[in-house]
C-alpha cells in the first residue's frame, strides 16, 4: 500500500496484538508475532506507553493495552467465547461421541480455550490452556489458514511430532489452501500418532474466523477416507450455532 506511513502501520499492529491478547505480552513475544526486530518493537512500545495507550506490568515488564483502549482494538474475550460455545460443544460431543476442542490463535501457537471430554467417562485430563502447534493439528491448520499470511514463517522450524507430521513448507501451504477451499481441516496422526481430528472455523459477526472447533478421536471413528468426513456436517452446524450465540452476546 503506497503512501501509508510505515511507523503508524507498525504501531497499529503492535497495539492490536497487545490489545487482543488475553495476557500481558513480553517484548520477545510481540516482536516475533509482528515479525519485527526487538529494537524496533521496543521503540514502538516505549512511544505507545508514553502516549498512554499501552501499560507495562511492574513486576514482569510485560505489556498490555491501557484501559482506555478497551473496545478500540480488543478482541473477543476468551471467557465470553467459552461461555457462548460450551452448550454447543456439549451437544457436538453427545452427537459424535468424540472429544471436542475450541482453540484460538495465541501468538504463533494455538491455545485450547475449551475442552469437552470424550463422553465415555474414561479418565481424561483437562487440556484447557494447552498450546497446540499450528502445522500439526487440525485446529492449528484452520487458525493458520485464516490468519494473516506469513504467520507460518514465524514458527522457527516446524517440529516433526510423528512420521505423519507435515514439516515441508510447500506441503503445509498446499494443506492450508485445501482447508480454505473445503472449509475444514484434517489431522491424521500428525501430532499424536493415534489421534486424528477434523476442525472448522468459528466466525464472528464480521465473518472473521475467531476460533477453531475440532473433534478428536481414533482415525476409524472419524471415517477419514478420501471424501468429506461425516463429522464435518455436525461440526459446521455447531460452529454456526456458536457464531449466532456470539452475535447475541456481543
Amino acid at each position: 500500500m503506497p503512501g501509508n506511513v510505515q511507523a503508524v502501520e507498525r504501531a497499529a499492529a503492535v497495539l492490536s496484538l497487545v490489545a487482543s491478547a488475553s495476557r500481558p505480552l513480553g517484548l520477545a513475544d510481540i516482536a516475533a508475532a509482528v515479525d519485527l526486530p526487538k529494537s524496533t518493537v521496543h521503540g514502538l512500545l516505549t512511544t505507545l506507553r508514553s502516549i498512554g495507550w499501552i501499560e507495562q506490568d511492574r513486576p514482569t515488564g510485560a505489556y498490555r493495552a491501557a484501559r482506555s483502549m478497551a473496545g478500540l482494538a480488543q478482541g473477543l474475550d476468551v471467557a465470553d467465547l467459552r461461555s457462548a460455545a460450551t452448550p454447543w460443544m456439549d451437544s457436538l460431543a453427545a452427537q459424535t461421541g468424540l472429544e471436542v476442542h475450541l482453540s484460538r490463535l495465541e501468538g504463533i501457537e494455538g491455545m485450547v480455550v475449551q475442552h469437552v471430554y470424550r463422553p465415555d467417562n474414561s479418565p481424561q485430563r483437562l487440556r484447557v490452556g494447552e498450546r497446540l502447534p499450528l502445522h500439526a493439528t487440525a485446529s492449528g491448520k484452520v487458525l493458520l489458514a485464516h490468519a494473516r499470511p506469513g504467520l507460518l514463517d514465524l514458527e522457527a522450524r516446524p517440529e516433526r511430532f510423528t512420521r505423519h507430521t507435515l514439516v515441508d513448507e510447500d506441503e503445509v501451504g498446499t494443506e492450508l489452501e485445501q482447508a480454505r477451499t473445503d472449509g475444514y481441516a484434517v489431522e491424521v496422526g500428525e501430532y499424536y500418532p493415534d489421534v486424528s481430528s477434523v476442525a472448522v472455523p468459528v466466525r464472528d459477526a464480521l465473518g472473521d474466523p475467531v476460533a477453531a472447533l475440532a473433534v478428536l478421536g481414533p482415525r476409524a471413528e472419524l471415517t477419514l477416507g478420501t471424501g468429506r468426513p461425516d463429522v464435518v456436517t455436525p461440526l459446521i452446524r455447531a460452529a454456526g450455532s456458536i457464531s449466532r450465540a456470539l452475535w447475541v452476546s456481543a
Partner: protein
Amino acid sequence: MTTRRLIAAIDQGTGSTRCLLFDESGQLVSMAQREHTQHHPQPGWSEHDAAEIWSNVRRVVPEALADAGATPADVVALGIANQRESCLLWDRSTGQPLSPVITWEDTRASVVVDRVIADGHHDAVLAATGIPPSTYFAASRVRWLLDTVPDLEQRSVRGEVAFGTMESWLIWNLAGVHVTDVTNASRTNLMNIEALAWDPDMLGVFGIPEEVLPEIRTTAETYGKCQDVLPGVPITAAMGDQQAALFGQTCFDVGESKCTFGTGAFLLVNTGHVPRRSQAGLLSTVAYVLPGEEPVFALEGSVAVTGSLVQWCRDSLGLVTTAPGIETLARTVDDNGGCYVVPAFSGLYAPHWDPAARGVIVGLTSFVNRGHLARGVLEATAWQTADVVAAIQGVLDQPLLSLRADGGMTTNHLLMQTVADVLDLRVERPLYAETVSVGAAYAAGLSVGVWSDLDSLRRLWRRACSWEPQMDSETRERERARWTHAVERAQGWMDSSDTVRA
C-alpha cells in the same frame, strides 16, 4: 419411519418456562423456552401471573415438538420440574387463579412467620416439617392470602379453592387432577417430614384449611393423562427444580452431591433414607420418593450471592463488561494479592446465618489492582461453597467423594479449579448442562419403563469436564483462615434497628 419414543420435560422456572424433548438414549432432541413477566408491586413482593405461565406452556410444548418434527403421539411420558415454594390459589370450578403466583423470593408474609414464632411454634415446625418457619416456604403465603383476599377463607373451607405449587397448577391444567409431588410438599412448612403426609398440627399452626390441599404423591408415578397440549400423554413425574437437578446428576447414593452455580448456589447432598436434622442453616428436604420404595432425603445448603456478585461487579462497578469476563480479568494476576470479598449483601446464610452481616472487601493495599479484586470475587464463591460443604460434612457420616457441578458458572475454569482446590475434592461437570430438565425427564422415563432402574439412568451420566484439587494443604488452610477472618469482619455490621428495616 420407526415410531419414536420421546420423553418431554417441562421446566417451569423462576425466569422462564421451557420444554425439552429427550430420546431414549437421554440425548436432547429439541428445546423451546419463553420468559414470563416478573411483577414487583411493592418492595419485597415478587409475583408471576399463573395464566401467563400456563399460556407459555401451551406455546413452548408445541414449539419443541415442531423443532423435533414430532407429534404428541411420539411422546411416551411427561415430567415436570418447577421453581420451588412459589404458589397460588385457584377456583376449583372455573380453574381461574384467585391470586398471583407469590414466589419464593417474596417476603410479604413475614407477619405470619413472626406470629408463628412469637406463639412459640418455631421448634415444633422445625421438628415436624424438617425446615424452620420462613417466608421462603409456602404456608405463610397461603395464610397471608386467606387473611387478605375477601371471602377466600370461607370459600376455602367450603372446598371451592385449590392451593398448589407450580407443578400442581400445571398438572391441574393439563390433566384435571389436584396433586402435588412429595419434594414440592416438603417445601411448604406443612408436610410431616417423617410421615410424608400433611401434618394436622402444622395446618393448625399456620391456619390452613385442609380442603385447599392437593393430594401428596410420589415423585415418579402416573398422575393423570394430558387432556390438553399433549393429548393422551401421561404425566409421570414431578419434582422441585433443585431436586430434579440432583436426580439429573444421578446422585442416587448416600454422599453423592451436586451444586448448581447460578446467581446463587444450591448444594444438595443425598443423605439416604433417614431425614437429617436441619442445622447450621442447612435444610432437610425430600430428594425423591419412588413408588413402593423407601423415601430418599437430602441436605440442602444455599449460598445467596455467587453469580449475582459477578453481575454486581459488571453492572454496579463496571469492573468487567460481561460476566464471563471476570475470569479473564482474574487471570491477569496469580493470586488475590491479599484481597478478600465477602458478599453478604443481605446477610450471611448457611452456615453463619447472620442477617445483620453486610458485604466487605478487606485486605486492601496499594498493591491490590482490578485483577486481584476479580480473584477475590471468584474466591468468594468457592469459599462460600466450602463453608456449606464443611457444615454438611459435620452432619454426614462419610466424606463427600466428589462434587457434581452444573449451572452457568461452570464454564469459568478458574472458578471451578478454585472450588476443587478449596474443597480438596474433584469437581465434575456433566455433558448435559440442563440437569433440571434432565432430572424431570429421567424420572418420567423411569416411571413408564423407558429406563428400567436407577442404574440404567446412572449409566447415562457423562463427564464433560473435571477439575482435580491442586492446592497444597498449607496454602488451603492459610487461605481458609484468612477467609474466615474476612467473614468475621462482615458479621454483625448492622445494628438491630437497621436489621429490622432490612
